[in-house]
């Protein structure tokens, strides 16, 4: 900012403080409600100061929603999706930017267009693929008449099936494709000077070696920034895990368990337990953001790319 006036400073600080306040209030209410006993939380109007029952509430929530194993599930799924997304995005952007093949732009636009097709839009076809991941191949075999051919020759009916329902693969794989990540990586790769590619060619390194030795270290800050966003968003996934897991005890995630913590219509209105559960559940993404923030900011302001 080149302009400096006390009035302008005041306005911008006021706006920032207001923003901070708006962000923090819901957290504060969750925390306060989570620390109250049942009678306290039922009182109207609700107190804005914390009480002393936080740990017992947390314990109740932990046991009631079986949060231990669910936490592990969530961690596996969120890390799996994050790692998968970053790997896939980096590799596909690498191919689009550094290799010169005929359908290069077509591939890029096909990937890019999927930005317009979020999971919610394609949930039915995605589910049917997850129910049998080999369905497209079966369809191909059927239309080409290969199934019929094999059946007439050998009498064996070809039926391909790979069921992803109720598995970690099913929870992770359909979420791994990311147009946003590919696009971010593409933009970053395009800032890499051609001379660097040529220098590594002269130094005798092949494409994969270049990717590993030069591109990945250079894109480290971008990668961590991307990982942060991706981890938080996949931790928060609700619809897809809900749909693909019928075996909630073994494959449920914590976000799905939030539902189990909401008091039933005619049950005890123990919102204090619900809030304590919510506190635990949002802790891991909060920690990830807190730890990654340094890299996140550096990724945005770094000069030496």
């Amino acid at each position, binding site marked *: 900012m080149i302009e400096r006036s006390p009035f302008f400073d005041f306005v911008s600080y006021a706006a920032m403080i207001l923003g901070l306040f708006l962000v923090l209030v819901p957290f504060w209410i969750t925390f306060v409600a989570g620390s109250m006993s049942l009678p306290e939380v039922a009182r109207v109007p609700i107190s804005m100061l914390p009480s002393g029952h936080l740990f017992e509430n947390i314990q109740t929530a932990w046991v009631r929603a079986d949060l231990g194993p669910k936490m592990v599930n969530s961690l596996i799924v969120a890390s799996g999706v994050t790692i998968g997304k970053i790997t896939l995005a980096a590799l596909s952007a690498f191919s689009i930017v550094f290799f010169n093949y005929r359908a290069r732009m077509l591939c890029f636009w096909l990937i890019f267009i999927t930005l317009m097709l979020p999971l919610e839009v394609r949930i039915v076809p995605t589910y049917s693929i997850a129910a049998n991941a080999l369905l497209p191949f079966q369809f191909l075999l059927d239309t080409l008449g290969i199934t019929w051919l094999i059946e007439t020759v050998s009498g064996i009916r070809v039926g391909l099936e790979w069921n992803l329902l109720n598995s970690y693969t099913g929870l992770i794989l359909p979420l791994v494709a990311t147009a946003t990540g590919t696009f971010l990586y593409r933009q970053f790769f395009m800032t890499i*000077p051609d*001379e*660097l590619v*040529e*220098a*590594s*060619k*002269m*130094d*005798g*390194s092949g494409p994969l*070696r270049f990717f590993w*030795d*030069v591109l990945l*270290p*250079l894109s480290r800050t971008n990668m961590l920034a991307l990982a942060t966003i991706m981890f938080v968003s996949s931790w928060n996934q609700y619809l897809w895990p809900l749909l693909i897991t019928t075996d909630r005890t073994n494959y449920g995630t914590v976000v799905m368990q939030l539902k189990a913590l909401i008091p039933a219509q005619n049950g005890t209105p123990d919102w204090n337990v619900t809030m304590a559960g919510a506190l635990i559940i949002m802790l891991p993404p909060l920690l990830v953001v807190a730890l990654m923030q340094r890299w996140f900011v550096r990724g945005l302001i770094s000069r*030496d*790319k």
Partner: protein
Amino acid sequence: MAAITISGVKKRYKKNDVIHGVDVEIEAGEFVVILGPSGCGKSTLLRMIAGLEEISEGTIAIDGTVVNQLEPRERGCAMVFQNYALYPHMTVSQNIGYALKVAGMPKAEREAKVLKVAKSVSLEPYLDRKPGELSGGQRQRVAMARAMVREPKVFLFDEPFSNLDAKLRVAMRAEVRNLHRSLGVTSVFVTHDQTEAMTLADRLIVMNSGIVEQVGKPSEVYHNPASLFVADFIGSPSMNLVRGFFAEDGYFRHGQGGMLSLPGLAKAHLSREVSIGVRPELVRRVDAGHKGAIAAVVDYTEELGASRLIYARADGSPIIAVDDGNDALGTGMPIHFAVSESDIHVFDHTTGRRIDHAGAAVRATDSVSA
């Protein structure tokens, strides 16, 4: 050390021809500079030698082996790039040693080699720094060390000094010269800077719009340019070139009724449309009464310190002379010049090629002597 043979090499982008057939022999251990204006295809030619550009037609052989189909790493060339092209995330020693690491050399051996090369270009104190913490000249030295460490058969330089300031450029020039003297590796150096080219080269290749105009020693190229382009491009200020024709009376006619008595040349080039050229430093100032003096009018002068340049006009044709007098010369003042017939270069006006004083055309690769 390796000789490079470039024969019939062409480069085509889609339908555009960038290089129209280049034939050059580069001898083992030679320092060759490719000189030309931007866009003449000099960098493309270098990159074809390196293996970074495909060769559309013709062959390039290094040490007798045709390398057209070889990967850059298999050609034994090392290259120094214009913008250094250092890996920003690696330290200086990692940058220098990267090629060896890729080649799978054990760590201890690698480090010893890196240290030795770093010493030779006085980079030891900086081995643990990142390129971003170095000055331009230091980065350039890292780039050179990176090329040297592989002990290549051929060094390729792609306008390596164009990002350095004038003083550093002179220093780096000397460093490259010394490097070549001590290592004796065949080197190809691309530049558009003629001072750089003249001082570094054993031999010069002058290129213009995709063809080789002349190949020869710097002094040869300067004193006996093989074409109008070379005559005009090399030398600062550039050569005086005047268009006209030789008449039977022994006079060269030019401009608006300009006449120059050149009986010797007129005999050989009778009634041919030509351009004649003479270096500004060979144009002498004489008194008005001098025999065969060219009468001219001063346009302006440029002071250079040790000498000055006189820009004048004789019968409509511009003429530049180097003069070491210091009398006042104002615009519009009359002045007289003289030129020796033997200092004059003759170029065929239609082909642009040099014609020797016997009247025969000169080819790009001919070694010309006056």
